[in-house]
């Protein structure tokens, strides 16, 4: 007995479907991951100082101090990055910019490579900006002794 050939249904065209739902879920999960992992305060850094010392009614007697602090005065002459005047109290050469100040302090720092230097790395350095000095100029000058490796840097106290 012969078997009749199976009737073939007409083949419909092959359809390819792509389920996008799972892909959207994964994309959002990746987005959330990167949002959480990204540090939005990138670039914000700090100079760490101690709280300013309390000033008594009487200024400290210079003879009581172990070391006379090095005083760096700052004045702004304009708003540009180079528009500032730096003066170091004492027998020091003119300082044209903060980089020169860093270099001068580095050269005078006592270290194993420079045992005949003038100042130890914890020598007190006081930054004394004029009241009209711009904050960015003050920071540039503050950065110089930090860059040169000094650790005891603060601002000159002023009476309120």
């Amino acid at each position: 007995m012969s078997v009749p050939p199976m009737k073939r249904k007409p083949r419909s065209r092959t359809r390819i479907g792509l389920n996008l739902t799972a892909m959207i879920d994964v994309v959002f999960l990746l987005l959330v991951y990167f949002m959480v992992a990204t540090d939005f305060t990138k670039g914000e850094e700090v100079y760490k100082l101690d709280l300013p010392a309390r000033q008594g009614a009487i200024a400290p007697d210079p003879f009581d101090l172990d070391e006379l602090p090095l005083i760096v005065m700052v004045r702004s002459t304009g708003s540009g990055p180079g528009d500032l005047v730096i003066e170091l109290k004492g027998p020091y050469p003119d300082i044209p910019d903060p980089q020169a100040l860093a270099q001068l302090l580095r050269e005078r720092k006592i270290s194993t490579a420079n045992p005949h230097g003038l100042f130890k790395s914890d020598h007190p350095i006081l930054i004394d900006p004029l009241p009209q000095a711009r904050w960015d100029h003050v920071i540039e000058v503050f950065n110089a002794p930090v860059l040169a490796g000094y650790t005891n840097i603060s601002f000159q106290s002023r009476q309120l």
Partner: protein
Amino acid sequence: MRRRPTEINANLTPMIDVIFLLIVFFVLVSRIVDFDSVAMDLPRPADAATERPEDDARLVINVVPGPDGSARSYKMQAWVVDATPEGARELTAVVREQLMRQPITALSLRADQATRYRYVSSLLTALGEMDRTGLTTPVRLNLMIINEEAR
């Protein structure tokens, strides 16, 4: 042959998933923004010898910039005081109160690059004159800048 009208069905399940993901996304993003910081241009020193701030508890004091290098106010969280020596003393009293209540180890000072030093100096002097008796945790002062060479 009569054609049945085309039926369109929308499966809402994945749409609900996406909406919940969006909600989680916005909840997380809103927590990352730091509301303590006032918008200003922090100084950007060249070759900055700075450190990354630590993540421990800190108070952020903003010297809110005004026109021509002046300061409008000092702002710390919800406290806003005049940018004068009296205002600085008032804010210092609030800072002391906060330091007594919480184990804060750092005060972060944010000032615009154009601000004149006199406004920052008043704040530094007032903080220096703060009565530190009773404060058990040592507090440091962090001067905040932008280091474009970071990372």
